[in-house]
């Protein structure tokens, strides 16, 4: 019984993990059709912001909830202005440029902070469930995954910003002709996506610690989650994270992490074969 609860909680946590990893990317890719290959490094930057500022004496929660999104969000705006801006509508070029950016960031962070930065402690202690103990921080992850999704939903649903962003993405020239300042839209979307990514990176830092190369293993997972989800940012991310998260975590419990990872990939493969436009390409089509 206890074990079942622990397993279930782990599964929910795995889903939350995927949601956190991929929300920012989903905003950027889903809205702008820009594959941000440096997404993993944006997460890394969020993590570094938390670790470095916390070690310098800043309150850990302040660092995670305010500084990480702020720093990464601003960095995102800068990147958009300097690089991404030139590359809209050119999916691959943006992929390549952001890939270059990813290397630049890895190298840059290594040069500034070296390879080792002491981690920060995981807040919240642990929680006892029968004979098991689980980190209380897990609940923080789950909470924030839910919060991020809700916030994005509210923005897209109840403000016109979402509409404008989607129109801009589909046909920027026509949106311009309707008076939309597309360059602002792009900048804001990219900035918000980056900020969400920064927040996620900040949240992950106490759990995994930070190293300059940490992004590499994260970007694949987030990318696959986003694409499997399909066009809709929220339902897409949520449905694919739920599906992939439970499948992979279930398999991990049952057969070990290698098979868990492999199961995630195979599940994504099968899903895309069945639903060539991702989950929300076919189901929940009209959702956000």
């Amino acid at each position: 019984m206890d074990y079942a609860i622990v397993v279930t909680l782990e599964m929910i946590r795995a889903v939350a993990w995927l949601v956190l990893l991929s929300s920012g990317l989903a905003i950027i890719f889903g809205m702008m059709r820009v594959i941000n290959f440096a997404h993993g490094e944006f997460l890394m930057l969020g993590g570094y912001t938390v670790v470095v500022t916390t070690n310098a004496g800043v309150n850990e929660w302040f660092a995670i909830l305010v500084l990480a999104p702020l720093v990464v969000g601003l960095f995102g705006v800068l990147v958009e202005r300097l690089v991404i801006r030139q590359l809209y509508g050119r999916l691959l070029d943006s992929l390549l440029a952001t890939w270059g950016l990813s290397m630049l960031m890895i190298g840059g962070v290594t040069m500034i902070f070296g390879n080792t930065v002491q981690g920060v402690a995981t807040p919240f202690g642990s929680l006892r469930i029968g004979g098991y103990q689980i980190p209380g921080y897990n609940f923080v992850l789950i909470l924030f995954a839910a919060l991020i999704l809700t916030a994005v939903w509210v923005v897209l649903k109840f403000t016109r910003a979402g509409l404008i962003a989607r129109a801009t993405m589909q046909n920027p020239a026509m949106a311009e002709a309707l008076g939309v300042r597309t360059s602002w839209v792009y900048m804001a979307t990219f900035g918000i996506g980056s900020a969400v990514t920064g927040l996620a990176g900040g949240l992950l830092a106490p759990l995994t610690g930070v190293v300059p190369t940490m992004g590499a293993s994260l970007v694949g997972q987030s990318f696959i989650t986003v694409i499997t989800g399909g066009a809709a940012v929220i339902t897409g991310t949520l449905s694919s994270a739920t599906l992939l998260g439970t499948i992979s975590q279930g398999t991990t419990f049952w057969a070990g992490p290698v098979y868990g990872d492999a199961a995630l990939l195979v599940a994504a493969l099968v899903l895309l074969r069945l639903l060539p436009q991702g989950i929300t390409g076919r189901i929940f089509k009209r959702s956000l």
Partner: protein
Amino acid sequence: MPLLEVKGLSAAYGLVPALHRVDFHADPGEVVGILGHNGMGKTTLMRAIMGFVKVTGGEILFDGQSILPASVNARARAGIGLVPQGREIFANLSVEENLQVGIATTGVDIAATVAEVLELFPRLKRLLDRRGGALSGGEQQLLSLARCLCRKPRLMLLDEPTEGIQPSINDEIAETLKVLTARGGITIVLVEQNLDFIAGLAGRVYAISNGVLDRQIPREQLTDPRAVSEFMGFVT
């Protein structure tokens, strides 16, 4: 003072010129028609006024002010609206959302504006929830027109607005546009192949040929296709 004044406008695609020293103007409330064969530069002219095509020479004055330095969206916000050739519907937005895009951030009463415009295009009313991309060709064309009108532009650039629209609705559109211009609120530059349509609306009509717009076609000639062809130059 004319609302739109195009002076000596030249434009090119790369090194290939497409417009040569085009001069014309449109006074407030006026409908100016432009006729021309395929590939003569009508669309290029419209896109140049809207700001999509790089201008290599000349001047465009809107309301007496040069708009050449302004971006496309700035021109749109200044009151220029384009109904482009090819409709350019936001395929994955619903019809209603398509109508809202242009006014989403302007602070006007969105619902009221949309409702007002829909009165002009009753056909669209029952399609509001449909995906833009799923509409039939004619329906898209109507949507494109309606979308432009939602912004209440002072100058409308219509690039073959009747293409793909059934005859009876064409008549209705002509009526609508007539009413709108008669009220004086709207000025129209109309590129059109449908002679009846242009004859019913336009005050002055020009012919464009190979990027050169230098002949005005007298109104009374418009009912005679042969005569019009002569003005436009026969197809080679």
